């Protein structure tokens, strides 16, 4: 089993300018967490930090898929709807149809993957823009949710209960939910795939220049279908985790989650034009968003809309930073030749 740390230590690329955004995100995470710790009692504890993973496990998983898609230069607007659809399917399958939970989960993951692959196919084979294709996917998945049921369905299933109510006990009396553990495993696998497999490198190549990738003999079309399938899979897995977290399926769950996922990926330093960025950055991006929400919940006086404004400000900061780095690199490059 290769852990994330293990992979990072033997990272194929030596630290350089491209890593700056990730370090800035890490710094920001530490900074916001310290601010929280200083301002609020009981904030600066290991458990609060672990709670970031527990409360955002689904978003971490969704952000993984989004990172793959954005690295190829695409975008996936359907993730929030697919999360909701997956939750609905979990709830209906286990609680209405009384099917065994592992079977239901397997089915949900297959549906999600197939859904993503279908969108990828439409984008690749018919050259419909990703924005539009995944928008249609977003409508479709949300529409199916609402068609299945207009109301929340709670999950009453032994397996789900058992997984949701138990957690991994860590030294020092801390705990980590199995959902969070799943998310961390997904992160490790994804980092491995991106850095150490041909699929991962093809993702970067396609994002750098699709035309070149194709002429170099790389399967550009297949890679694009794969990333949308991965994103579909991650959304479905995120949906399962969300269902575990809330023990219910609801057609209005995860509205706007695509924005959170995109924001996390951007804050994590991945460039939206594709080809540049690291998965670990997206995870840090999710954690930064998580810290902000935690701070707001610790501070009873701040209204919820400040979260959105804060995310907007952060987005602006990071995008401006990327521009700064990008502009410097460009000016360096254009000097010779």
């Amino acid at each position: 089993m290769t852990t994330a740390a293990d992979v990072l230590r033997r990272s194929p690329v030596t630290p350089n300018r491209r890593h700056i955004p990730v370090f800035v995100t890490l710094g920001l995470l530490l900074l916001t967490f310290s601010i929280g710790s200083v301002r609020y009692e009981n904030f600066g504890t290991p458990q609060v930090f672990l709670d970031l993973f527990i409360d955002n496990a689904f978003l971490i998983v969704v952000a993984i898929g989004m990172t793959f898609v954005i690295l190829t230069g695409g975008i996936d607007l359907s993730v929030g709807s697919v999360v909701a659809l997956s939750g609905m399917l979990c709830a209906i399958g286990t609680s209405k149809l009384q099917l065994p939970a592992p079977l239901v989960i397997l089915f949900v993951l297959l549906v999600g993957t197939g859904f993503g692959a279908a969108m990828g196919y439409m984008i690749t084979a018919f050259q419909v823009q990703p924005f539009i294709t995944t928008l249609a996917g977003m409508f479709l998945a949300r529409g199916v949710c609402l068609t299945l049921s207009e109301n929340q369905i709670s999950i009453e299933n032994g397996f789900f209960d058992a997984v949701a109510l138990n957690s991994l006990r860590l030294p020092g009396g801390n705990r980590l939910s199995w959902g969070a553990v799943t998310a961390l495993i997904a992160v490790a696998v994804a980092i491995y795939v991106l850095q150490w497999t041909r699929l991962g490198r093809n993702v970067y190549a396609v994002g750098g220049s699709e035309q070149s990738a194709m002429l170099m003999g790389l399967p550009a079309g297949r890679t694009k279908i794969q990333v949308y399938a991965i994103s579909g899979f991650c959304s479905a897995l995120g949906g399962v985790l969300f269902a575990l977290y809330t023990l219910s399926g609801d057609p209005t769950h995860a509205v706007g989650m695509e924005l959170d996922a995109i924001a996390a990926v951007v804050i994590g330093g991945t460039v939206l034009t594709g080809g540049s960025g690291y998965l670990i950055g997206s995870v840090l991006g999710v954690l930064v968003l998580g810290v902000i929400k935690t701070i707001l919940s610790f501070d009873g006086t701040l209204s919820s809309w400040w979260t959105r404004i804060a995310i907007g400000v952060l987005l602006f900061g990071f995008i401006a930073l990327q521009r700064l780095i990008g502009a410097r690199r460009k000016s360096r490059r254009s000097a010779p030749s």
Partner: protein
Amino acid sequence: MAAPVLEMEGISKGFPGVQALQDVSFRLFPGEVHGLMGENGAGKSTLIKVLTGVHTADAGLVTIDDVDTLIRGPLHAQRLGISTVYQEVNLCPNLSVAENIFIGREPRRFGRIDWKQINRRATELLARLGLDLDVTAQLGSCSLAVQQLIAIVRAVDLKAKVLILDEPTSSLDRGEVARLFSVMRRLKADGVAILFVSHFLEQIYEICDRVTVLRNGGLVGEYPIGELSRLDLVAKMTGQELTALEELDEASPDVVKGERLLALEGVGRTGAIDPVDLDLHAGEVVGFAGLLGSGRSELARLIFGADSADTGVIRTGGGPVALKGPRAAIDQGIAFCPEDRKGDGLIMDLTVEENIILALQVSRGWLKPLSQRKREELVGSYIKALRIHPPHPYALVKNLSGGNQQKVLLARWLITRPKLLILDEPTRGIDIGAKTEIQKLVVSLAGDGMGVVFISAELEEVLRISHKIEVLRDRRLVAELDNDGTLTPEHILQTIANGAADS
């Protein structure tokens, strides 16, 4: 002679409105360098794309090693032993040098990519070409010429039986070309069949064993290079007795220097070109000669305000002017046809008419649109004068051949009646017929009193039409030579080689 490694027979390929290839046959033997010659639009690119699987032929047979083969795509072509290096570097700028060489066939250990081995082997491969590079650096940080060589290294290491080099030399300087040729000779000795496309006749004669000539999508013939004189080759490519070149020589420039249009005093830009003093006069063609990266394009961009100068003053007849951006330069009567037609020049999705009137419309301001009648009249006359083909104003520019696109770009500026016209590589990558037409046009424009700056990598061309030649080297203006009829390309080369020593 051994059996051909590759044989194409009766290949036809049509696109909507164009028959790009018509019943073309082509043979390639192991251990030969085979030149593929033809004007733009002759079907060279289409033939190569059929060979690399980008396009599928409508009819015809492809035989590789005596086996009928349907090439399904670039990847399949590579598997069949056909590798291609294109004129535009088709690598991924965001990946490392080493990864660009190995991506798609990375060595793996225990199922995962072995980065150590990739970096080690990449270093070795580049060292064999005499390149000492940090292979972990991003490709985008390398110069274009180095990127080109990396693309060749990638292709060579693919264990190719057939190596297609599609105008690989157009962005290389002489040293790099020599290095490329030595690599090609070694590959040839190893039995690789090389298909070489280049617009430089000297290079064809230097490296090729045989040539195949295409014209208008049809096959003209296949010839051993030794049995074909340059004039014959050009005649076969253009399909006409080529007297145009000699004609132009006779119409050799009379120096009718007019008023001074621009004076550059110490104009420079850090990292682009050292401060330059230069006078440009009406009725005078000034050639910029120098190798790639010598600063010739950079200087042109400064004069047009495309980049802003850090130092120096530019004066017109009326005193110093600040050329803050192209618009200011246009207002001063300066026009600029950039080197990269597609990226910097034309708007591919717009029509010929829209592209031609663009600059004129811009200087009129958006509130004063040209009337339909006026547009038709203006555009029609330039299409006719420059013989733009197809002669239709509503054709999309992207559907035109390179030479005709260049003419559209020229028309855009001529229509604004500039006092000074800057042409950066106006004849690069276009066919000989169009090339001669453009050279003639430049001479006649200067005759009418326009100042022209003419930039070209081909010294013969610069010599033929310029009154004065500015020689650049290493981002410096090293000499100014009067073209009094005694200058030869060797003179200029020597000046470039010796630097500022004599002038």
